[in-house]
C-alpha cells in the first residue's frame, strides 16, 4: 500500500465517494487506495509546500498550434517562441486541449492520454514544462463521438458502455439549462438498436455519465497521468454540467461540487502544488460557488470582468465596473480569481446578469457589433433567444475606426486593469499580440469563434512583431515589458490586499499592497477618451502626502505638484511612491 495518505484524507475521500456513489464507497476507497502512486505520482510524501502563487504568476492561454513553422512540431515552435519572447513575462502556459480531437477546436476529445500527432509528442509538452509551468484541460463533461469509449458504447463493451447517458426521448427535459440551441438528445444506432444519448454541446460531444464510478476512476487515472507529465494547473472544462439528475436544471448539482472537491482532495494527496481551475461561464454568484468552503477550486475565472470592462471602456462609464468591483467578495484561504479579458471562447455575457441594466447591455451589444462582433445567442425556456457570447478579439472590441492610437490606448488600459486586479492574470495569445478580428477564419469555418482563433505562421508573426511603429508590434512590446516589470512587485501578489477608489466619473484607482504590507502600488486608470487630472488631495487621500511617484508602466518618475497628475485618454499608471 502507498504510504502518504493519512487516515483523515482517506476518510474525507470515503465521505465524498459515499455521497456520490452510496454503498459502493467502501469498495471504491479500496480502488482509490491502489490508484495513488500510479505513474509514480504520490509515491513519496509531498514536500512541505511553498506558497501556492505569487506576483510572477501569469498564465498564457494558447492553442498548441498557435504558432507553426515547417519541419517542427507546433508544440516545439510554441516552446521556442515563448522562450524567446515571453520568459519572465508569463509563468504558466495553458495549452488548450492538445489531445486527438474531432470538433470544437479540441474540446471534443478522442483520446485523453495522447498528444495529437500533428501537434507533437508528450516529450514536447514535458520540455515546455521545463521552462514554464503547465496548465492542461480536463474535459470531463463530454468526449468525442469518435472516441474509443463511444465506440465501446455502440458495441456494448463494458466498462465504457455505461459511460454515457441514454434517455427515452419522451423524458421531460425542459428544465435542463444549456448554452446551445442544438438538440439535447442525439439519436445513435448501437448493437442493441436505436438509442438517444445526452449531448449538451453538440452531437459530436457526447456527455459522460458521472454517476458511473468507473468513469470517475478513468478520470482519476487521467489526472494522475497528467500530473506525471508535469501539469500544475488543471482546468475543469464545462464542469458545471457534469452531474445530471432528471427533473432538475442539471447545472451545479451538489454532486458536481462534490466531484470538484474530490479532484482537489486527490491533488492534495498526490501533489499539493497542483491547482484546480473551474470553468463555469455562468452568472457571477453561480460561478464563485465553485470556491465552495475553500475546499473546491483553487482558482475561478473572473467571468464578469471581460464584459464589464469592455462596457466601461466603450461607454467611458466605469460606474458598473466600480459597483461590481466594490461588492466583489474575494475568497479566503488558498483560493483566488483568474483575471482575464479574453480566451479562446468568446466574451460570455451571461455573467453580466444582475450587473448591467438592459439599456446598458444593449449599448454594449451595439458597440461590439459595430466593431465586427458576431453575437451568439442561446435558447431560453420561453422559446426566445438572448445573447450568450460575443465573438470578437478583445483588441478589435476596443478599437476605434478613425483613431488607431486611441484604440490601442484603450486596449492596453483594459489589459493593465486586468493585470492590476487581485488574483492571477491570464492572457490570451491574441490579446498579447493585439490581433485584430480574423474574419477570413470565420468565413472559412463558418464558426463565429474562429474570429479569435487565428493560427500564425512563425515567420509571419515575427514579421508583425518586429515591425517598426506598427500598432500591433508596439502593443506587444509594451505589454510584455509591463508583464516583466509587474513580476518584480510583490504588491501584485494574488493574495495581497486591494482597495478601490473612484475619482470623478472616469478615474478608478486600485491600491494594491503586498502580503507583508511593505509595498504599495497605486494603479490609476483613466476610463475616458478625455485627459483626466488627479489634482486635489481631496480627490485621493492616499496620494496627497507623496510628492514623487515612479510609474511602473511608463518607467517615468512623476511629481505630484500643484497641477497634480494628468492621465491621457485611457492611460493607466502604476504608481509607486518615491521617498
Amino acid at each position, binding site marked *: *500500500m*502507498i504510504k502518504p495518505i493519512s487516515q483523515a484524507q482517506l476518510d474525507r475521500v470515503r465521505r465524498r465517494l459515499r455521497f456520490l456513489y452510496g454503498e459502493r464507497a467502501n*469498495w471504491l476507497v*479500496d*480502488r482509490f487506495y*491502489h490508484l495513488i*502512486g*500510479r*505513474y*509514480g505520482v504520490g*509515491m513519496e510524501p509531498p514536500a512541505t509546500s511553498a506558497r501556492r502563487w505569487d506576483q510572477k504568476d501569469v498564465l498564457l492561454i494558447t492553442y498548441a498550434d498557435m504558432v507553426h513553422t515547417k519541419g517542427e512540431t507546433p508544440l516545439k515552435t510554441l516552446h521556442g517562441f515563448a522562450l524567446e519572447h515571453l520568459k519572465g513575462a508569463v509563468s504558466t502556459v495553458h495549452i488548450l486541449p492538445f489531445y486527438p480531437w474531432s470538433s470544437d477546436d479540441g474540446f471534443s476529445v478522442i483520446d485523453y*492520454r495522447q498528444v495529437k500527432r500533428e501537434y507533437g509528442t508528450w516529450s514536447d509538452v514535458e520540455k515546455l514544462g521545463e521552462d514554464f509551468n503547465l496548465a492542461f484541460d480536463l474535459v470531463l463533461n463530454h468526449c468525442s463521438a*469518435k472516441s474509443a469509449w463511444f465506440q*465501446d458504447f*455502440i*458495441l*456494448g*463493451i*463494458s*466498462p465504457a458502455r455505461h459511460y454515457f447517458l441514454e434517455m427515452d426521448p419522451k423524458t421531460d427535459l425542459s428544465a435542463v439549462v444549456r448554452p446551445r440551441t442544438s438538440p439535447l438528445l442525439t439519436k445513435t*444506432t*448501437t*448493437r442493441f438498436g436505436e438509442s438517444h444519448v445526452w449531448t449538451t454541446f453538440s452531437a459530436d460531444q457526447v456527455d459522460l455519465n458521472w454517476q458511473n464510478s*468507473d468513469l470517475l*476512476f*478513468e478520470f482519476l*487515472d487521467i489526472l494522475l*497521468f497528467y500530473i506525471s507529465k508535469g501539469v500544475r494547473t488543471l482546468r475543469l472544462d464545462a464542469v458545471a454540467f457534469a452531474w445530471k439528475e432528471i427533473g432538475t436544471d442539471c447545472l451545479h448539482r451538489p454532486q458536481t461540487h462534490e466531484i470538484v472537491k474530490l479532484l482537489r482532495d486527490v491533488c492534495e494527496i498526490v501533489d499539493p502544488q497542483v491547482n484546480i481551475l473551474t470553468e463555469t461561464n455562468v452568472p457571477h454568484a453561480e460561478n464563485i460557488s465553485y470556491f465552495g468552503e475553500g475546499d473546491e477550486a483553487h482558482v475561478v475565472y473572473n467571468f464578469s470582468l471581460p464584459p464589464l470592462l469592455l462596457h466601461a471602456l466603450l461607454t467611458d462609464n466605469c460606474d458598473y465596473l466600480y459597483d461590481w468591483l466594490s461588492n466583489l467578495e474575494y475568497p479566503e484561504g488558498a483560493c483566488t480569481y483568474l483575471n482575464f479579458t479574453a480566451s479562446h471562447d468568446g466574451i460570455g455575457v451571461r455573467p453580466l446578469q444582475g450587473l448591467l441594466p438592459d439599456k446598458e447591455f444593449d449599448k454594449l451589444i451595439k458597440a461590439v457589433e459595430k466593431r465586427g462582433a458576431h453575437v451568439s445567442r442561446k435558447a431560453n425556456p420561453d422559446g426566445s433567444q438572448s445573447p450568450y457570447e460575443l465573438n470578437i478579439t478583445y483588441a478589435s472590441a476596443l478599437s476605434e475606426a478613425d483613431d488607431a492610437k486611441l484604440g490601442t490606448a484603450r486596449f492596453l488600459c483594459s489589459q493593465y486593469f486586468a493585470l492590476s486586479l487581485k488574483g492571477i492574470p491570464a492572457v490570451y495569445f491574441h490579446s498579447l499580440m493585439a490581433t485584430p478580428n480574423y474574419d477570413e477564419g470565420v468565413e472559412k469555418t463558418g464558426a463565429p469563434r474562429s474570429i479569435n482563433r487565428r493560427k500564425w505562421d512563425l515567420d509571419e508573426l515575427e514579421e508583425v512583431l518586429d515591425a517598426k511603429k506598427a500598432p500591433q508590434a508596439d502593443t506587444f512590446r509594451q505589454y510584455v515589458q509591463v508583464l516583466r516589470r509587474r513580476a518584480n512587485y510583490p504588491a501584485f501578489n494574488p493574495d495581497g490586499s486591494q482597495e478601490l477608489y473612484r475619482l470623478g466619473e472616469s478615474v478608478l484607482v486600485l491600491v494594491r499592497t503586498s502580503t507583508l504590507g511593505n509595498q504599495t502600488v497605486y494603479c490609476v486608470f483613466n476610463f475616458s477618451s478625455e485627459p483626466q487630472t488627479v489634482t486635489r488631495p481631496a480627490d485621493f487621500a492616499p496620494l496627497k502626502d507623496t510628492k514623487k511617484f515612479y510609474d511602473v508602466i511608463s518607467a517615468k518618475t512623476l511629481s505630484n505638484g500643484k497641477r497634480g497628475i494628468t492621465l491621457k485618454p485611457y492611460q493607466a499608471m502604476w504608481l509607486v511612491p518615491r521617498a
Partner: protein
Amino acid sequence: MPKNIGFISTRFAGTDGVSLESAKWAEVLWDDRHVSYWYSGRSDREPGISYVVPEAYFGHPEIEWINERIWGRTSREPLVTTRIREMTDYLKTSLYHFVKKFQIDFIIPQNVLTIPMHLPLGLAVTEFLAETGMPAIAHHHDFFWERTRFSVNGVGDYLDSAFPPSLNNIRSVVINRPAEEQIALRKGLASLLIPNVFDFDKPAPQPDEYSADVREEIGLKPDDVFILQPTRIVPRKGIEHAIKMVGMLKDPRYKLVISHDAGDEGLDYLHMLNELAKEENVDVRFIADRVSEVRQYDSLGRKMYTLWDLYPHADFVTYPSTYEGFGNALLETVYFRKPMMVNRYSIYIQDIEPRGFRFAEMDGIVTKKVVAHVQRILEDSHYRDEMVEHNYRVARRFYSYTVLRRSLRTLMTSLTGWGNGG
C-alpha cells in the same frame, strides 16, 4: 449438479481467439447446466453475469505503464515491483469479490496464466488459486516463450511462478501438440490437448436480408471471383503469398479481399503489400472500414458487416500464415464449406494435417503446382464440392463440440470428483 463457473480473462469482447473459444466452452458447459460468469477488464457479455474490473484489461494505462518497464530490459526498478504488487493485491481482492458475488465453484483462467500481457492479473489469479484451493482449468492459448517480444524481460521470477503456475488444484489445457510438449519440458506440467472447436453439428448461417448485398457493397461485379483473406494485416499472416498466388492465376476477375485492418504492428507491411499488388497486377480490396465485430451502420450511414457476413459470399479463402497458435480461420472456412489455400505452418503440420483435410497446400512458397491446384478448385465445382464436404466431415469428427464436451467432463471429474451430472 450444476456449478457456477468463473471465466477469467483480460477481455471477453470481440473476435479474438480467446473470447471466441471461451464462449464456446461456456456453451458446452451450459449443456450440462453449468452457469458461466465472466471476470475481465473489458466485456461484451451480459452485465448481469459480468464482473468488469477495468484494471484487469491489458490495455489499461497502468498495465501499459508497467509493460513499458518490464519488457525489452533485463531488470526492473523497485517502483515497478511496487506497482506490480499493488495491482496484484487489488486484482486478487476483486477476484475474491467476484467469486463471492456469483458463488463461483470453479475457475477457468483463459490465457491469463499463459501469456503475460497482464502480469499482475496472472499473479493475482495464481495467488488466489493458491490461497483458496479452488479447482481450475487453465486454458492456454499462447505461451510467452512463443513470442519473441517477451524473451528479454525483467520479470523472470514472476514468469517462473505464475505463467503457468504449478498448483495441485489447476489442470492445464493446451490447444496444440507443441504446446503440450513445451509445457511439460519447461514446467514439468502434464496437460490435456483440446483443440479449438466449432459447432459443426449446427450448419453455418446463410446470407440474410442484411448481408445479401455484401458483394456489390464491397465493389465486386457479378463475374468477379471473391477471394477472402480473413485476417489482420500483420506479417505473420503471409499475405504476400496470397497476392502472389492471385497474380499467378492471371485472371482480372479474381479479387483479393482483406477483411481486417493493419496498424497493430505498424503500417510498413501494408505498404509492402500495396507495392507488391501493383507489381503483380492484383486487385486487392481493403475493406476493414466495412467490417465490424457486430452489424451496425458507420458514420456515413453505410452498412458494416461481420466476418460471418463475408464468408458465405466468398468463393475461396487464402490462409498463408507462417505461424498460428491453432488457426481459427481454418475451422471457420471449413465450417462455411469454402475451399482454402493454406500454408503448412508448424501447428498445421503437427496437429491438423494428420486429420486428413484436403486444402490447396503451399510449403512456404507459391509454386506453379499450388496455383494449378487452386485453379482446379475454382473451376471444377464437382471437385470443390467434394473437397469442402469432406473437410466438413473431418472437422465434425475432430473439432466439434462433442469433442470438447467429452474433454471438459473428464477434466472436471478428475479435479473435483463431481462426475457426470452429479
